[in-house]
């Protein structure tokens, strides 16, 4: 079965086909017995959809190794089933916002709406914007900044690849642990004042938390 260890990427969202099931089946027909990475593009797949994909792959003697997708829903589902999964950010020039004559590019910002619950993990190769809470036991990370429109109660890691300029901002910053680049800090013991958004950043080799300022 493992005659070749090469990984073949199978895109299951193709306009040539009616839906992903038909697409997957017809593509697997050609690729019998290989290791597969599924690229589901922007499809939102649930755990049961992913189980279905694995079932279909087994019929064609194929082994699913990993998933990649631009949908964070799909990433969370495939991760909860124990697959290596990677979030991909679509590059598009449309995502530019003009504020105070400054161009803010959102081309590398990933947006996730909803609560990240205990045991879940979300990672972004760019910046990460979360509309919702990050609960205790959950982990979020990004190569750039992390902005949480909600409460941060879990673990956040900004500047995952070593960018020490990265920041972590939240409406309520009460994390278990904060990481920026290669620095680790435990969350503050005292509850923050209600109603003031806060930001964590590195200042003189230490992670500090201060009220969020926008310049």
């Amino acid at each position, binding site marked *: 079965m493992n005659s070749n260890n090469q990984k073949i990427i199978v895109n299951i969202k193709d306009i040539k086909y009616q839906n992903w099931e038909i697409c997957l089946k017809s593509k697997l027909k050609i690729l019998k017995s290989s290791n597969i990475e599924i690229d589901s593009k922007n499809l939102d797949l649930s755990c049961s959809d992913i189980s279905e994909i694995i079932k279909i792959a087994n019929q064609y003697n194929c082994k699913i190794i990993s998933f990649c997708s631009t949908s964070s829903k799909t990433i969370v589902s495939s991760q909860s089933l124990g697959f290596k999964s990677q979030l991909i950010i679509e590059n598009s020039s449309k995502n530019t916002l003009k504020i105070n004559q400054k161009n803010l590019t959102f081309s590398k910002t990933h947006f996730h709406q909803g609560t990240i*619950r205990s045991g879940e993990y979300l990672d972004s190769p760019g910046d990460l914007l979360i509309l919702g809470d990050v609960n205790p*036991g959950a982990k979020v990370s990004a190569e750039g900044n992390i902005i949480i429109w909600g409460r941060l109660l879990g673990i956040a890691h900004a500047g995952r690849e070593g960018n020490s300029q990265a920041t972590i901002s939240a409406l309520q910053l009460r994390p278990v642990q904060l990481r920026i680049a290669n620095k680790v800090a435990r969350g503050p013991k005292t509850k923050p004042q209600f109603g003031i958004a806060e930001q964590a950043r590195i200042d003189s080799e230490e992670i500090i938390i201060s009220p969020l300022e926008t310049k």
Partner: protein
Amino acid sequence: MTNSRRSVRTDTRVILICSGKGGVGKTTLTANLGISLARQGLSTAVLDADFGLRNLDLLLGLENRIVYTAQEVLEEECRLDQALVKHKQESNLSLLPAGNPRMLDWLKPDDMQRIVDMLKEQFNYVLIDCPAGVEDGFKNAMSASQEAIVVTNPEVSAVRDADRVIGLLNTNAIKPVQLVLNRVRPKMMANQEMLSIDDVTDILALPLLGLVLEDEQVIVSTNRGEPLTLNSVNSPAAKCYLNIAKRLQGEDIPLIDPAEESSGIGAKFRRLMQTKIF
């Protein structure tokens, strides 16, 4: 199959009762909810999916009546009605053990679906008592459910595990998911020694189906094999279970206020002082 002649009910509610952490009261809730629903005239089946460590039969006092399990039904060694164990006093309630404690890994999600489909033909409610943990046992039990009740206690570890379970339920498109907060001690809550209701609902962000007050009678009834709701003694927990059963059917019953329940004149007096009525 003989099933094809019967009409399939579409209004059956299949409810998973789960928690993540063990010992928070899943089985007790399943048993009491089953009895309460049955007493309101609804035919109810309780399915013990925690067959490795099965307890539901003990709680219902039906241990000595079990002959077959769902496993034998699926292998066509017996009929479904032979495996269903009717409750002694509450004839609307039936128990189906999913399997034998000795056969640990026979059940697959497909099997679960077949069992539940069979039960759906006969019952208004199917309550599935889920095993603790988030591994295969939980995934099997989840595979055949439409909605879920998450049971948790007002303590950090139980809330954390419940949160994990809710995440898994959400990614599997199980809706609605409702919350039952079990073993609430009003006195400790009033003194802020225990997580408050708001603390819990803040993190879990689920609609609260009900609170169950801590009650020593629960232990007594478990040991006797007679669920509290069966004899409707004046027990606080039994009242809570009955309210949950009514709310489950859409009745609008206000939640009890734990502050009202914290007994003792001293506590009530102190509260009055705090509210500055005097």
